[in-house]
Structure formats: C-alpha cells, structure tokens
C-alpha cells in the first residue's frame, strides 16, 4: 500500500488540503497527518478510496462533501464533522462538537464518546444506497436529529446510566429514525417526534451497523445485540402539513 506522512504542525488548511489532494492524485492509499491542530475542512469534497489518519484535533467541517474516503481521527473533532458528506466514513476516537453529520446524505460517522448539540441535524436519504448513518458511543446534547429527513442516528450510551438526558430529540423530524439504547423519557421528545417499539426486525436491520461500530472501537458487539432500544421517528407522514396553513 502506498502511504505518505505529512507533518501538519502550524500549517494552514489550504496547503494541507493541497498536499492531501496531490497525494490522492498520485495514487496514495493511506495518508497520515501528524500534529493536526484546528485545521478546518480536511478531506472536504475528496473522492476515492484513500484512508486518512489524523493524529490531533482537526478543525470544523471535517470530511464535508466527502465522497468515498475514510478519515480516522485519533483525538476529538470540532463542529460539523461529516457536514453534507456523501459517501465514506469518519471514525472519531474521542468526542465531537455541535452539528455533527449536519445535512449528511450518505456514508457513516462513528463517534466513540459524546457529541454536542444538534447532532444529525437535517440528515437526509435518497434510497437504500444513499442512507447516512451516525453512531454515537456515549451521549448527545439537545436537538439530536433536528429537522431530520432520513438516515439513522444511533446512540449507545456506553458508560452512561441513561443514553439520553437532553431534551428536544427529533425536534421537527419528518423522516429517518433515531434509535437510542434503553428507554427514553417522553418529555425528552421534540416537537413532531414519536416513540415506536424497537422490534427484532429492527435489530436485524441495525446489527451490521452495531458490529461495524464495535469493530472500530474494540467493543464486544454481543453486549448491544438485543432489543433494549427506543426508536424515535416522525409522528406522522407529514407532521408539519398544517404548520403554515390557516384554513
């Protein structure tokens, strides 16, 4: 495998991304970025099957519009990793900021620990192939899956008494599903969101995702392969049909 190492210490994101693109154009399959600290837009709009290992804390909008590559972050991420991402995978061995997977339309974002507010906001899907997945190992703050139109958000609550304690889950959701480990208090649901029973069929559907997440972070998937989840989705097919209508 062709691999390159780039020392990003003190480098602005423009030359850094230029180096990444040049390496990908050169047929490099693995890029290791050392001493990353706050550089925004890493891997944005990048295509192909390259694997980028980021040692440090990348800046906002990691993997925005990305279509294909895998980014592994050995550290935390800032705001909106996976923003409008199309295909590929982000694996964050830490926590991430607000608006994680914002408007994501395909691929996977796996966060080992916690995320900030509005994770999965505006996620959408087109068909079985273009279905984004956001998995959070720990917990998420308020407005998880806000205005969500498609895709899957899964919260495992590892090490937490309750997977979710913040309000506004699925506020304004009109498509897709939010699946949370254990029970979820009714008052945590956002406007237009409703709880559904999590069935064996649901488990079968998400089992490959659970396994894939556990593989990345070294967890035993058996611990998570049961039906002790709550499924949250839109209250009806058009929950806001009457919102702007005054008849």
């Amino acid at each position, binding site marked *: 495998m062709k691999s390159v190492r780039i020392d990003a210490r003190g480098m602005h994101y423009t030359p850094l991304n230029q180096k990444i693109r040049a390496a990908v154009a050169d047929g490099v399959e693995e890029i290791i970025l050392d001493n990353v*600290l706050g550089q925004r837009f890493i891997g944005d709009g990048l295509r192909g099957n390259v694997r980028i290992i980021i040692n440090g804390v990348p800046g906002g909008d990691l993997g925005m519009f990305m279509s294909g590559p895998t980014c592994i972050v050995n550290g935390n991420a*800032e705001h909106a990793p996976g923003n409008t991402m199309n295909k590929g995978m982000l694996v964050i061995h830490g926590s991430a*900021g607000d608006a994680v997977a914002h408007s994501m339309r395909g691929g996977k974002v796996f966060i080992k620990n916690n995320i*900030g*507010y509005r994770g999965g906001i505006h996620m959408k899907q087109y068909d079985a192939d273009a279905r984004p997945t956001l998995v959070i190992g720990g917990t998420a703050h*308020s407005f998880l899956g806000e205005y969500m139109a498609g895709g899957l958000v899964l919260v495992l609550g590892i090490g937490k008494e309750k997977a979710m304690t913040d309000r506004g889950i699925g506020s304004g959701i009109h498509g897709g599903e939010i699946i949370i480990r254990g029970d979820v208090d009714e008052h945590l649901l956002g406007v237009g969101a409703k709880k559904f029973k999590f069935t064996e069929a649901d488990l079968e559907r998400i089992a490959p995702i659970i396994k894939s997440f556990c593989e990345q972070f070294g967890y035993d998937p058996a611990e998570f392969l049961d039906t002790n989840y709550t499924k949250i989705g839109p209250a009806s097919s058009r929950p806001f049909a009457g919102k702007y209508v005054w008849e």
Partner: protein
Amino acid sequence: MCGIIGFIDRTKSRIDGSSIKAALSLMNERGSGYGAGYAAYGIYPEYADYYALHVFFDNLAKPKKKVDEILQQWGEIVHQEEIPTTPQPNMQKVHISWRYFFKPSEELMAGRMTSEDDVVTYIVMEVNSNVKGATIFSSGKNMGVFKASGWAEEVADFYRIQDYKGYIWLAHNRYPTNSPGWWGGAHPFNLLNWSVVHNGEITSYGTNKRYVEEYGYKCTLFTDTEVVAYLFDLLGRQHELSHEMIVRALAPPFWEDIDQMPPKEAELNKAIRLTYGPALMNGPFAIVVGTDDGIVCFTDRIKLRPLVVGENGNRLYISSEEAAVRILDPEVKNIHTPRAGEPIIARFIE
C-alpha cells in the same frame, strides 16, 4: 461568527499575552479583520488603587481637554500617557489610544456621590455620550482593554500585547454582521472591572438596553455586546447578585424546565424570571466575562454558539474551539463543553 478566549490562573500567577495572541490567531476564520481585542487583569500593579481609563481620542486637542476637565472635576490623575503602540503595515491608526490612572477624591465627591465606582461609571457614560471624539473603552483597576479594527495578530502587535502580564485574559476576534466594524465596536466591552467577550448576537438588545437605561447606563457604542457589560454591573455590583444568579437571570431555564424542578428551586427560578424579565437575553451567544474575583462563561439556552472549557491545575481555559485551548496549554486536561445556559465560574484562590 466570532472567536473568543478566556484564561484565568486562580492563584494570580501571570502569563504574558503571546500565547493568547497565538490561540486567537488560530481562529482567524472566525473573524473578518474588522475587530480584535484583548483584556488583561493584573497588568498595572504599580497603579492598582487607581482606575485605569483607556480612551480612544480622535485628536489630542478638544476631546482630550474636555475629558481632562471632567476627570479634574471628580478627582486626581496621577499619571497619563499614550498607550505604547507599534504601527502595523495593514492597519490604519484611526484613534489615539490614551490611558489615565485616576482616582476620585472624597472632597470632590462630597454631597454628589458616595461610591468611587458610581463616579467612574458616571464619567464613562458622560464622556461616551457627550464628548465628541472621545470614547472610554476600559475603566477598571489593575486591568485594561486593548482593541482596534484589524486581525488578531495585528491588534496584538499594535498594542505590544506580549509586554503585558495578566492572571485573567480575555480575547476576541470579530466578524461584524449587523453593526459597524470600528475600534469601539471591537470586543472586549468593559465597565469598571467587568469585561465581556461575546460570539453571537443579542436579539433582545432593544429590551435589555431600555432596561439598563432606566438605571442611568447609556449604550453608545453601536453594538449589542455593550449592554451585557452594563447588565453585569447592574446585577452584580448594584444588586449584589452572585455570578451564578446573574447568569440565571440573563439565561434562565425555560418554563418547561422550571415546571420539572423541586418546589423550592422552582420558586426561586420563577422569582428571578419575573424580577429580571427585561434582563433576559435572547439570541445566539457564547460569552466570557472577566470580573473582580474571577471569570464567568455561559451560552444561550439552546446552545447556538460553541464554547469549550479545559483545565490544568489552577488554570482554566475557555475558547470557541478546542484547538485554541490546546495552543494555550498543550497539556490541558478535562476538555469539555458546558451545557446550554450552564454557568462555568472560576474564582481566585485566596
């Protein structure tokens, strides 16, 4: 979008401004070159008993003569000078930054005002609303604000920020969106020992402004954040609320959350909301406030702006982005993001 930084050493051990400048510069993307500023506490130990008044003068003729006159009506100027600056190639020097070390005198105050802080507040409001060509932008003791239009590094180098040593630092780079980018509109905003840096906008500005104006404050700097400094002075100094209670008044829990509280707590929170309704701040904000006894930071109640906190021993670091915190201290520990509306308060250890 703006970038903010807060630093405190609880034992009052001081650091110079160079790492603050480096951390703020890392977030240049959050600014647009139309405003940056720094506040440092502990920088004037030789004049610790005097109010350090930092003033923007359009010229040193008429505006300065007027300010001199007002100060002489109330007290004594023990020292004054132009704040040392170094010209920056891409920064236009629009104002002359001047500093006075000033103390109100009991004789001159007699029968007019009883508290020195009231005198200085009055002078700030009087100069900023009535003296053309002069703006007092810093008025605390043993602290000072340094700000201008420019990028984070330019403003730091202009004021030689590395030459100051402080135990509290606030810093801000500005991306003005709905008010002019001018020197007085750069953050931090200050009154007495309250200094405020803010990312976001106070959409309740009109209500908040009218509220503080009832108590004699005058908003003259053409931007929303100014009112936050006056709200802290009103609630903290005049009404003697604790920092926790000030934040509770400015970013109170939602009524739905109050309904879930135990009766006694619910009663307290209802009382604060009803008493301080016009002080409630709406809109997106992440704010750090420097005070006499430490720093306070908090965000709006639905967390529309980022705020990251890290610690290391007696030091607390706050920023819009984790990377900036790591520039301040690569060994930083316990990095976390406070909940919406949750106050993070660090006080000095006696």
